[in-house]
């Protein structure tokens, strides 16, 4: 196997992972080739050379190698971040909405309503933002945590109290009052239309 190919595969593996990968793990990429740590090291060295003077660098950490943006580039990236806040996923918003409206609510109850499992990542995120906290534990088998919203949630959503959350009927009204707000989120409707024409 040529060094160039090894390099390409190692590079792609490092690129898709934002966690450090060790040499030992990188060797797993090649189960049928008889490569040694030496081969991987050579590929790593070649990559390091490639990245010289670029916006990304190969960082050696205790647990392995990680591709990361170089410090010199951070101020530039900041421009993009400030302009384009990350959109929260639908699963996350629905979970938060259920907690806000149905609190105190357990994770199991959220799953019952949504019909799919709620990932721990979502719950952790909501707690990290301090929008959601554990209010207590329900006295049933498993002692599930009851979740509720916080003062910070109210502040961040510009609400004086939970009473200010509109009722379901009122939400439906908002939609009919401002329909254009809800349909320009993405371009699907237009694209759909022309597709339909193709089908006729």
């Amino acid at each position: 196997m040529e060094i160039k190919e090894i390099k390409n595969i190692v590079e792609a593996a490092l690129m898709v992972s934002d966690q450090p990968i060790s040499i030992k793990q990188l060797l797993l990429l090649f189960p049928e080739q008889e490569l040694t740590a030496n081969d991987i090291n050579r590929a790593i060295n070649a990559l390091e050379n490639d990245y010289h003077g670029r916006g990304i660098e190969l960082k050696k950490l205790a647990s392995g190698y990680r591709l990361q943006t170089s410090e010199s580039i951070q101020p530039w990236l900041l421009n993009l971040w400030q302009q384009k806040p990350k959109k929260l996923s639908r699963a996350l918003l629905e979970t938060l909405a259920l907690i806000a409206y149905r609190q105190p609510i357990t994770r199991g109850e959220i799953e019952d309503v949504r019909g799919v499992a709620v990932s721990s990542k979502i719950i952790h995120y909501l707690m990290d933002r301090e929008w959601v906290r554990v209010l207590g534990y329900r006295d049933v088998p498993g002692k599930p945590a009851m979740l509720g919203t916080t003062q910070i949630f109210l502040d961040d959503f510009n609400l004086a109290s939970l009473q200010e959350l509109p009722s379901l009927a009122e939400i439906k009204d908002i939609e009919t009052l401002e329909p254009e707000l809800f349909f320009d989120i993405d371009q699907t409707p237009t694209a759909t239309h022309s597709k339909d024409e193709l089908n006729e």
Partner: protein
Amino acid sequence: MSDIEHKLIPQQHEMSFALVEGKPFTKMPVDLYIPPDALEVILEAFEGPLDLLLYLIRRQNLNILDIPILDITQQYVKYIELMHQLNFELAAEYLVMAAMLAEIKSRMLLPKPQSEDEEDEDPRAELVRRLQEYERFKQAAEDIDELPRLGRDFQVLSAYVDVSQFQADDSQVELRDLLMAFKDVMARVDLKASHAIERERLSVRSRMSVVLNSLLKTKTVRFGSLFTKAEGKQGALVTFLAVLELLKAQSLELVQNTPFGEIYLTQPKSIN
């Protein structure tokens, strides 16, 4: 080089639609005979009566536009009977299709009306249209499955970036997004059961949170302190209902040390 090239060609795995005793079945059986223990898995592989019918037609290289309805009906009914014998849970749709086939068969036996109206359509026409319509989407589903898919066929690059500098400006969310998410999730619940959340209910719910929150801070709360004059009768009622709800859910306990004495709310003992 040849070694890597060979490896680099994306591997096409033949789709096995069923596993019988650990052995993958990649093709539908050629004739009607199916090993009894395999029948169930094979039937499960059908996505409904149209799929089964299409399989029967395709297996014999029959023309979909000119189905020998008698043959097909007989074969279809045999399958249904087999399913029945094996106590295989039969979706009602399969029986509806059997009835439809029988109806078409009987209509084809009737002498053609004399009139040359447009109405004397081939009795099979509707079935043929549905079969074709189903088949094109069955194919479309396979085509979509073959599109390069994120996670299966490719990954998005994600170099590590030190986000600590970005924390100040984290993702933002508008109240409207939250409300729309709630509306959608409730719309989905409404598919199953129609119960809307009313304002009254919400205030009891949120008051339950308030009560639990105060308990988190102090462990014991004087019952009377939950009520404030400013909220009036309605506020008192809502608080009272919230406490009852929490008691019912065993999320708190009431303690009274002396008769007619002060009532206190505490966290349930089992949790502490």
